[in-house]
């Protein structure tokens, strides 16, 4: 069972629709108690880093999420803002974030149209079970003005160019995150979700993933 974290401002319904069309068991979760029974977590996101952090804090979800991800090693997928808030700090609204990964979030500079909105090419830097069936380069749908700058090179699973090269997907232990909206990226996006769900389905524990640094 995948828990899709619903904090009322995100795009949880779209993620749920995508999982359901793939016949993956999923439900919305918005309380710490509801996290107990899930075997995988998706944090979708639209809007601002600050609003997202505020919502997670108000719902009292942060300690419970940390216990799931760091304690139980439950596979976790952050999408868009759900990726950005994994860093320590976001320049968007000068916002302290979760700090699950070292690094910060900065804005694209003014040489490109902001937000980046559209299909851009994602180049995977290495193979990973979550990428099963996907080619080395694939198009995904992006909507973002900010991008993550993780400190550790080894967490970068994919990069994309938009005025500059940036990290468009990361992976570290049970944590995955995409800057693109995988739930809105057609067949390729659904494939990635399906792969994540099979990692989260209990067939394979997160510790067996080759990149695990825990």
């Amino acid at each position, binding site marked *: 069972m995948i828990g899709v974290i619903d904090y009322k401002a995100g795009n949880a*319904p779209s993620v749920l*629709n995508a999982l359901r069309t793939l016949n993956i068991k999923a439900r919305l979760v918005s309380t710490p108690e509801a996290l107990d029974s899930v075997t995988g977590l998706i944090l979708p996101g*639209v809007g601002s880093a600050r609003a997202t952090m505020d919502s997670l804090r108000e719902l009292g979800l942060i300690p419970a999420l940390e216990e799931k991800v760091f304690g139980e090693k439950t596979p976790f997928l952050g999408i868009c803002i759900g990726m950005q808030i994994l860093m320590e700090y976001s320049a968007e609204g000068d916002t302290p974030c979760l700090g699950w990964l070292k690094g910060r979030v900065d804005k694209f500079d003014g040489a*490109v149209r*902001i*937000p980046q*909105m559209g299909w851009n090419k994602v180049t995977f830097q290495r193979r990973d079970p979550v990428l*099963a069936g996907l080619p080395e380069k694939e198009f995904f749908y992006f909507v973002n003005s900010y991008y993550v700058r993780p400190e550790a090179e080894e967490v970068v699973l994919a990069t994309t160019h938009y005025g500059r090269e940036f990290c468009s997907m990361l992976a570290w232990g049970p944590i995955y995150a995409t800057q693109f*909206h995988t739930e809105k990226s057609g067949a390729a996006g659904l494939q990635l979700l399906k792969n994540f769900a099979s990692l989260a389905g209990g067939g394979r524990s997160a510790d067996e993933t080759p990149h695990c640094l825990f």
Partner: protein
Amino acid sequence: MGDLLTKRLIACFDMQNGMVTKARQFQNNIPVDRAELVADRVYQDQIDEIIFYDITASAQKRCIDLETVAKVARKVFVPFTVGGGIKNLDEMYQVLKAGAEKISIDSMAVRCPDLIREGALAFGRQCIVLSMQVKRVAKSGRIPSGYEIMIDGARVATGLDAVVWARKGEELGAGEICVNSIDRDGTHAGYDLALTALISQQVNVPVIASGGAGHPRHVAEVFTRTGASGAIISSMLYSPLMPRNYTVREIKDYLADCRIPVRPWVETDPGMKTQA
């Protein structure tokens, strides 16, 4: 400049009572098919994005047909925008909850520009598409660009200059601006290139060209001769009024032949795809 994104092909549908309909310059709506079926076909044909307008919601003073929005959202896994008389944050929230990603606002934004600001604050600016109905008029002190904003199904002139309104919209928080030429709408004679170029020069958010596409070369033209990031296609996909329709694949292949960067149409479905 420095814009490396692929150009977006956006299918736009008018809906009425759960059906997609096709109009010519805002009149004579004829039903085409059920909204979710039309949406599913164009999604399977690998469209980049989909927009639905509930064309009578505003006139009938009702909220958007959320049931149809939800049906469409369950079928399409590309960005989905919905518009039609949305007038407050609660209605925006309902539409997003039904599964849309973006809200298009048009006449309501002209009446209440704060709606753009409030929507952008509540849901992020990427969520707010400012849609503009633009008519060519004589250049004047009031309308220096010669393009005027119209509202209420393009029937009511506002005295607003399109360039001024586009900039204001961006400043208020619109994440995208969709520029529909009333003069070209339904003519199948090509987009208003001058208008599209003008607006895309004047704002830094993505601009979507709309109104007039009848042949893949019109789409190619708007991408090579203006700064548009996306182009709306409608009639050429499905209108029974057209001598022929085009598939998304045909249009993408045409654009690729013109060396326009597009998300390529791919042969296999995800289940069939083999490891690279």
